[in-house]
């Protein structure tokens, strides 16, 4: 369960879909991404809210040419020059997903839901090609789960079984991504003994966590 970052990310293989937690830098598993760059797996699909900032973390993974496709809600930020350059050069695919659909599609993957009707995006260009249906007088679009081969997330404290608690708005995508991947790797600031976390406050139960890295 408790391993080094390089050992943890060795689960990632060429062609994998990797879910990466974080909203901007809050909750971003920076050390795991660095280890993934070292690891060298390529042809990846990255599912994350953003598409990298500055020259480190996700942006460095993109710059290293390891990413075939990005699935995110908001790739365009003031410091997203790495993604911008690759996208304009036609060197990376992009699937833009409204943030709420992104979160709900990840949850659906973890919850065994085959598909769901969402009201988000109806009447917009992002509705193109999607099945729509009117239910109870309101129009919805059919949305499918997004599953990951591996999830890289950041939490605050773990116990040695893998139960996780998060910190403030760094919680964001971590708990849903943890449920949506075949292998979930969490980097945490602290690992405590089993029994030290109050069972009432555990946010991600250990069943969803495969590897822990303390950074």
């Amino acid at each position, binding site marked *: 369960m408790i391993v080094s970052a390089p050992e943890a990310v060795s689960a990632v293989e060429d062609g994998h879909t990797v879910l990466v937690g974080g*909203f*901007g*830098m*809050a*909750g971003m598993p920076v050390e795991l991404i660095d280890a993934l760059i070292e690891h060298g797996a390529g042809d990846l699909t990255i599912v994350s*809210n953003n598409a990298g900032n500055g020259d480190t973390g996700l942006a460095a993974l993109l710059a290293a040419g390891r990413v075939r496709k990005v699935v995110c*809600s*908001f*790739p*365009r*930020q003031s410091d997203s020059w790495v*993604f*911008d350059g690759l*996208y*304009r050069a036609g060197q990376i695919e*992009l699937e*833009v997903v*409204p*943030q*709420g*659909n*992104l*979160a*709900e599609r*990840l*949850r659906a993957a973890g919850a065994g839901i085959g598909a769901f009707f*969402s*009201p*988000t*995006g*109806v*009447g*917009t*260009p*992002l509705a193109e090609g999607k099945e729509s249906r009117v239910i109870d007088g309101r129009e919805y679009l059919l949305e499918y789960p997004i599953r990951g081969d591996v999830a890289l997330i950041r939490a605050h404290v773990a116990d040695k079984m893998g139960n996780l608690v*998060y*910190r*403030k*708005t*760094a*919680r*964001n*995508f*971590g*708990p*849903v991504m943890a449920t949506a991947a075949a292998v979930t790797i969490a980097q945490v600031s602290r690992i405590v003994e089993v029994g030290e976390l109050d069972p009432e406050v555990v*946010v991600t139960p250990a069943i969803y966590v495969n590897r822990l890295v303390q950074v």
Partner: protein
Amino acid sequence: MSLSREQMAEIVARDIPDGAYVNLGIGQPTMVADYLRPDSGVVLHTENGMLGMGRPAIGDEIDPDLTNAGKQPVTELPGASYFHHADSFAMMRGGHLDVCIMGAFQVSARGDLANWSTGAPDAIPAVGGAMDLAIGAKQVFVMMSLFAKDGKPKLVPECTYPLTGRACVSRVYTDVATFAVEPDGVRVVETFGITVDELITRVGIPLVPSPFD
């Protein structure tokens, strides 16, 4: 006199009911927070998983784990709660927020909202939480200047920019007038340094004058 951005924010704040749960999006609408009365009981939601967001953090208060939807450091108020992204957007999509306030490129006569893309061929598409907010809150308030830099009205018969949401806007707060989007048309609620006649002339859609004018 037309309104400054601060004055617009003040007017929007005045129209938020006490105790309302409100999402301020990113950019200009976040200024509304500065004009909410401390005893109003208004609770701010931020899409990245929090109710009870406080003012921007300064100095030692800055915590990289506590930001708003614009990724700026903020503070936490008593009675706050944190939740994950699926829960945060379920709260929106499920219609639990009373008011959401957003900027806009265009709003149509029936309340269609365009605020995520100018449709420029080389633009990188990026929608964030805008489409979820547009269809999720009980009321969507838009804050924008009424006229673009080229003088064209941004309140239009039909949006020419790609839509964010259909028939979702209930109020439009601009620098020269406030509008209510109602079943029988767009009503002028209040004007600032412009006459209703001039508004009608410059905005290319039929306007229903306020019953109180």
